[in-house]
């Protein structure tokens, strides 16, 4: 089962914890909001991704199972 990261842009307040914890996949834009590509996470990063999602103070980072259809 493949997982992806997604940001809830309404909840996100640019704390930037996610980019600290998962710099491999999360960059910050010039205003401090995370930029994430939509690609599935490789298994080696899953644990880091989970930690990043849990660390978000506004629960804005979502680790989601890839939807087969939208």
């Amino acid at each position: 089962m493949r997982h992806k990261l997604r940001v809830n842009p309404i909840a996100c307040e640019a704390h930037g914890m996610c980019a600290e914890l998962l710099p491999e996949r999360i960059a910050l834009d010039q205003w401090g909001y995370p930029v994430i590509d939509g690609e599935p996470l490789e298994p080696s990063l899953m644990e880091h991704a989970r930690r990043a999602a849990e660390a978000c103070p506004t629960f804005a980072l979502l680790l989601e199972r890839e939807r087969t259809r939208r």
Partner: protein
Amino acid sequence: MTGSPSLMAEPPTLGQLDAAPALPRLLAGIPAHGAMGLRAHLELHGELPSITDRRSRRRRRRAESPLIGWIEQAGLRGRGGAGFPSATKLRAVASGRRRAVVVINAAEGEPASLKDRTLCRALPHLVLDGGELAAQAVGAEEVIVCLCESALASIESVATAIEERARAGATRTRVRLQTVPNHYVAGQESALVNHLNGGPAMPTFTPPMPFEQGVGRRPTLVNNAETLAHIALIARHGPEWFCQLGTDSQPGSALITLSGPVAHPGVYEIEHGASLSSLIDAAGGSSARAAGALLGGYAGSWIGAELLVDIVLSDEHLAPYGATLGAGVVLLLSEEACPVAETARVARWLAGQSTGQCGPCINGLGALAQTVAEIAGGVAAAEATQRVARLAALVQRRGACGHPDGAVNFIISSLQTFSEEFSDHARNGPCDACARAAELPLPAQSSTISRVRGRAYTR
């Protein structure tokens, strides 16, 4: 609607019908002022059919309404701008577990679009017919008409029409009217649902989509007013009739709000695939040469003057130009106007219409509008155009709704279509035309939507 409604499980076919009049369809008999009353409406269009399959009534599980199949055959797509297939949406709502709700979306936040408020003002019964038919098709007991709070004549017409139908004993569902703040994104599906649930009229993070969980957490069908008016006619005349007009990939007619330098700007009904010049002729011809046409409104794309003669109004013909009809907006900009100053003004307005919920939208659209203004004023840094492209890429697909994407589309299209004018302004500053009165319509006043910033943790 008067007497016993006819029950139909099979669509009317052309053999049963007189030769169908070509156009107008939706706008047939439209009064110049006020609204068409219930009696005149029924005389013109015939009674509202009740479309149920008798055989299905005995089955325990509700079978799909035949109307959904007709709408599918008609190839009807939503007329709010996104162009989603209507039958698919109806089916998704109908398959929900809980009883559904139907929302007639006539919020029409797009400043250059007047078609939905015009329909509601002049032909409210056609819109309400569509709402009731959709309610029957998805098994809803409630229909909510959403109108912009500033569209006073439309509010008046719809309120009167609802009373008229109730007095005639003609309503099958509860129908109520709800006004919506005059704001660009207030008519976005999830924003409407949020508003109807007592929240601010601001988009929400999806999923759940309104069709899954909308008003009162019920499956909610949010349909544009024009879409529902087409459904009112498809139910009466059948899909075959609907497809007599239009192109293969975009059957039927469409309402277009035409503005700019023409003799009679306003709302027109065209056949998909009609030429832009025939639309301009119908509006009494051009009153000045056009510098370009904006299609689809302020989330749409420009087409330059040299291409206008050949433009055909259907999405398949517009696709090579990167344009769509969107919600049916055709805005001509006269040659006297300055496209750079106009773009800067609209870009600033679009940035102001961000509901301020998503960081990339607040910051990105603000920075974009600022950069475009600097180019227009001739005070931009050397690589300002590249900065616009970089900011645009940074904003796209990073909001909860499509507003930042639409705004970026408009700005990028302006820069491409009027590239010479933009480089001229960047080098030499404002031109003579910059000082002229603005042409592209913007609302004099927009309401602000207040929001209590919702936090996931306690306050």
